[in-house]
């Protein structure tokens, strides 16, 4: 019979063995009877000859070779029964473990999906991005280039290497039902999908034929997520046509479910060919040099809006990079031939490089790398605390089971066998906790992705539990089980039989006081770990509060803003001035509104424009000076509450025909003119410096609270009448809530066809920008609280057990005249020693680790003494409270009963 068959047929084999041995004894008995003995005597001799019936059976069982599995199974069932006998403790232990294990699994899964997982395409290590390196620029700009340049590169490398291009992401409006729905779209070249090797699960994907003629590719590919969300996986979607930003597009296919985008964590609903850019009025994520952005972008050299990717084996990268760079540098030298020598020298430092991106692009990754590391460390610490907690509690319980262990040992169990049993119990507990933890992890992943998102929807990261995550979860569970199983196992291995029996089956008294330090050591280490977690919670919460308190330079709570997409609604340039007037009138008519304004880019709304300005008066350092630019109506400064430090704001007189004016911030004044007093200074977009500075503003933070105030140039909207504003702001006299609703209604009734979103206060928008810091603060706070609770429980358990063991000693003290207060103080003094040891250990060992989190903090040092003191005080208070209850119990011991109970 094979080993497996023997394992499964245990019962049959046992009966077989029994039968065999009985025959043997009977045969031997018969022989002895024939030799002349009585039946009983014969039987006795036969059994002696056999050498112990049960012993033979045991040896035969060992010979089966399935022993260890059977033992393990028996131990597990015993452990489960034991757990069922003390449901309260088991539930608490399992829950503690579930929290620790689940949190670790969730974070690992998210880290894996964001940081480590490769793109779901063929041979991801071959994917490279073409990037400009060597000179400073904004991250996005170093990837962007124009369509004609891409074609020149493609021509230079021939057909062996394909280059594909993608635009940035933009919100377009699709009329699928009766209302326009916002969709996130990306434009791609015809070579994009073939290059990546992505497959369609329905229909086909965009190909080279769709990308040949301007406006001649009215097709779209939708992603799986969008198909599910919008169409409920209706197979008839392929072939359907609907209008996107007014252009009829036909859905030709749905991408395979694993693929969303080459930018990880970015939601994409729809892909369209590059040649549709002008028709779709896609006008975002681009920088222009002397080009007309109102004409189609594809043929224009001066518009950089495409990111280029290519597929090349890692070994062939240097060769390809050299060829691409050759083309680039030739053009660069030609372009800079007439430029200023200083500018030329700086420009010639640039060259093209191939950047491997097997894991795709991810701004999300860059933003969350540090917080993820901090959080992973945090949950690991929480798990350690939980394990220490459990180890202490299990240790206390194993003391109570000393009698049972001694009995087993005396019945013939070897120490190895006993240790195996105890370890199995710990592992079983760990497995139960781990299983619960997996369930928790699912929920935790969803919750985390939602919390970390700065928008209404969760971050679209595929962090579901897969094989790798399960492997991790099992590994961590086993490790945790072994970790907290060590303490009771060590106890069992050193079991002192005689002492246990002498104690008569009750908990051993007095003499075993040397055993207590292990329990107290565990609590001290728990307190040490908890101190770090509590201090970390303190500094992260303070970071968030510090950020919230940063002065943005404008009113936050009383200003309500709304984002508009006028371009998507199909308005022409001529219709804009009348529309703007209508919008402002409608906004001002809202009851409770003090003033209203329009701006090209709203505050904290995520959009911005950067332009280069030339200041002829500055001969010391010629060249363009970049600054953020915005176009606003005259009431803007009053509406949003920006303060002028000198000069004036815009008025109705700053019209298109009037001299060009600007109001700049202090940072812009310093950058453009080198001084704060810049009123009267002149600058321009190019050589004719025809813009005059009429006012200087106090510095503002228009993008996020975390960034330092950028140089900002504001111009009157009237002097740039062809700009499509994207934001309307109103100042509320009282509470903003009714204004929010009123503004939505006003916009809907004035211009129904304009998509409107994010109607909310500036305060809300700024807070959304801090979602990362808020997430970390909340989670760290949770960990700190959890650690505090666990440390208190651990201390309570150990002290409580110690008091129970020392009942007799307490009784003697009380009988000899000690007051209850003295007994309480005695217990508390010993507890304080443990707490103090833990705090000292924590400060010395774990606290310095907080220095690693320096980059995540704002306005507070990682080793801030105030926070440390606060954390220590909190732990001290919790510890004293936890020790107080058993201490009071000790004082209430009845001396006579305690001494008598022997």
């Amino acid at each position, binding site marked *: 019979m094979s080993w497996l068959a023997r394992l499964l047929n245990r019962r049959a084999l046992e009966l077989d063995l029994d039968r065999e041995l009985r025959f043997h004894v009977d045969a*031997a008995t018969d022989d002895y009877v024939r030799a002349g003995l009585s039946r009983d005597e014969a039987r006795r001799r036969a059994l002696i000859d056999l050498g112990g019936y049960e012993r033979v059976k045991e040896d035969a069982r060992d010979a089966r070779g399935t022993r260890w599995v059977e033992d393990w199974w028996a131990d597990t069932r015993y452990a489960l029964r034991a757990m069922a006998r003390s449901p309260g403790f088991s539930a608490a232990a399992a829950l503690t473990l579930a929290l620790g294990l689940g949190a670790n699994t969730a974070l690992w899964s998210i880290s894996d999906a964001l940081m480590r997982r490769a793109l779901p395409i063929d041979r991801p290590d071959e994917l490279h991005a073409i990037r400009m390196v060597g000179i400073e620029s904004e991250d996005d700009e170093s990837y962007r280039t124009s369509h004609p340049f891409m074609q020149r590169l493609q021509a230079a490398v021939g057909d062996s290497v394909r280059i594909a291009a993608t635009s940035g992401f933009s919100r377009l409006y699709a009329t699928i039902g009766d209302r326009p729905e916002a969709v996130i779209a990306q434009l791609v070249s015809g070579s994009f999908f073939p290059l990546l090797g992505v497959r369609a699960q329905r229909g086909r994907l965009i190909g080279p034929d769709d990308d040949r003629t301007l406006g001649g590719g009215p097709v779209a590919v939708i992603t799986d997520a969008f198909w599910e969300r919008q169409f409920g996986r209706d197979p008839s979607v392929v072939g359907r046509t609907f209008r996107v930003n007014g252009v009829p597009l036909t859905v030709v296919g749905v991408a395979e479910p694993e693929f969303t985008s080459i930018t990880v964590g970015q939601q994409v609903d729809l892909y369209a060919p590059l040649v549709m850019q002008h028709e779709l009025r896609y006008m975002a994520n681009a920088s222009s040099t002397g080009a007309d952005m109102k004409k189609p972008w594809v043929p224009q050299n001066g518009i950089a809006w495409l990111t280029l990717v290519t597929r090349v084996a890692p070994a062939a990268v240097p060769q390809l990079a050299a060829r691409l760079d050759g083309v680039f540098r030739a053009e660069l030298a030609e372009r800079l031939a007439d430029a200023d020598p200083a500018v030329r020298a700086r420009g010639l430092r640039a060259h093209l490089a191939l950047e491997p991106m097997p894991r795709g692009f991810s701004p999300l990754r860059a933003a969350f790398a540090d917080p993820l590391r901090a959080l992973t460390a945090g949950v690991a610490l929480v798990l350690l605390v939980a394990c220490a907690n459990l180890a202490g509690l299990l240790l206390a319980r194993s003391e109570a089971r000393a009698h049972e262990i001694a009995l087993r040992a005396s019945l013939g169990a070897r120490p190895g066998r006993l240790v195996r049993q105890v370890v199995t119990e710990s592992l079983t507990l760990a497995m139960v906790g781990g299983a619960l933890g997996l369930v928790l992890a699912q929920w935790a992943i969803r919750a985390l992705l939602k919390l970390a998102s700065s928008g209404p929807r969760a971050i679209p990261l595929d962090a579901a539990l897969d094989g790798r995550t399960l492997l991790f979860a099992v590994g961590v569970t086993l490790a945790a089980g072994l970790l907290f199983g060590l303490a009771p196992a060590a106890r069992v291995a050193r079991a002192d039989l005689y002492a246990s029996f002498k104690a008569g089956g009750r908990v051993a008294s007095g003499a075993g006081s040397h055993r207590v330090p292990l329990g107290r050591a565990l609590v001290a280490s728990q307190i040490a770990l908890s101190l770090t977690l509590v201090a970390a919670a303190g500094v992260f919460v303070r970071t968030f509060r510090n950020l919230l308190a940063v002065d943005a330079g404008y009113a936050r709570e009383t200003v309500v803003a709304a984002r508009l997409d006028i371009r998507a609604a199909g308005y022409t340039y001529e219709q804009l001035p009348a529309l703007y007037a209508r919008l402002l009138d409608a906004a001002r008519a809202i009851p409770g509104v003090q003033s209203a304004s329009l701006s090209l880019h709203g505050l904290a709304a995520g959009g911005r424009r950067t332009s280069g300005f030339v200041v002829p008066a500055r001969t010391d350092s010629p060249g363009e000076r970049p600054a953020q630019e915005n176009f606003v109506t005259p009431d803007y400064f009053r509406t949003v509450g920006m303060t002028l430090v000198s000069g004036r704001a815009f008025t109705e007189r700053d019209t298109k025909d009037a001299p060009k004016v600007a109001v700049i911030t202090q940072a812009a004044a310093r950058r453009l003119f080198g001084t704060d007093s810049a009123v009267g200074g002149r600058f321009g977009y190019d050589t004719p410096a025809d813009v005059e500075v009429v006012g200087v503003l106090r510095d503002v933070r228009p993008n996020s609270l975390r960034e330092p105030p950028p140089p900002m140039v504001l111009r009157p909207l009237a002097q740039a009448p062809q700009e499509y504003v994207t934001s309307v702001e109103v100042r509320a006299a009282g509470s903003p809530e009714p204004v929010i609703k009123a503004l939505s209604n006003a916009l809907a009734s004035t211009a129904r066809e304009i998509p409107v979103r994010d109607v909310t206060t500036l305060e809300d928008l700024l807070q959304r920008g801090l979602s990362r810091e808020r997430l970390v603060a909340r989670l760290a706070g949770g960990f700190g609280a959890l650690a505090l609770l666990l440390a208190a429980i651990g201390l309570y358990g150990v002290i409580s057990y110690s008091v129970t063991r020392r009942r007799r000693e307490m009784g003697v003290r009380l009988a000899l005249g000690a007051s209850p207060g003295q007994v309480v103080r005695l217990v508390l003094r010993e507890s304080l020693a443990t707490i103090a040891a833990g705090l000292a250990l924590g400060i010395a060992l774990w606290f310095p680790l907080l220095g690693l989190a320096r980059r995540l903090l704002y306005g507070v040092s990682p080793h801030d003494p105030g926070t440390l003191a606060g954390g220590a005080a909190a732990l001290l208070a919790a510890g004293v409270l936890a020790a107080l209850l058993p201490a009071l119990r000790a004082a209430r011991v009845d001396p006579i009963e305690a001494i008598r109970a022997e």
Partner: protein
Amino acid sequence: MPACAADLLQGTLDMLVMRAVADEPLHGYALVQRLKLTSGGRLTVPHGSLYPALHRLENRGMLKAEWRSTATGREAKFYWLTAKGRRHLEREVVAWHELSVAVALVLGTFAPPETR
């Protein structure tokens, strides 16, 4: 002094058991008697060691077992040697002989007084 078979190494016991059932199938009790008989009374295998050895050999495929009726009409579990077991036995016997030659050579002419 008759050798106490408790001194037998496990491998040696296995070899003896296999030899005993090489000629005809035997059940456990009969095996004990056979070993005692053929060794001239010198070898008394403790009955308890026998069954673990039998089961081990059966698990390894050296022996095969079957419940049959004995002469007295009762049912007993009979063991016999498989082809694999026979090959193994032959190898073990050869090795044993070589070992005993080597041991004899080493011991040489050393003769303890009790030996006859």
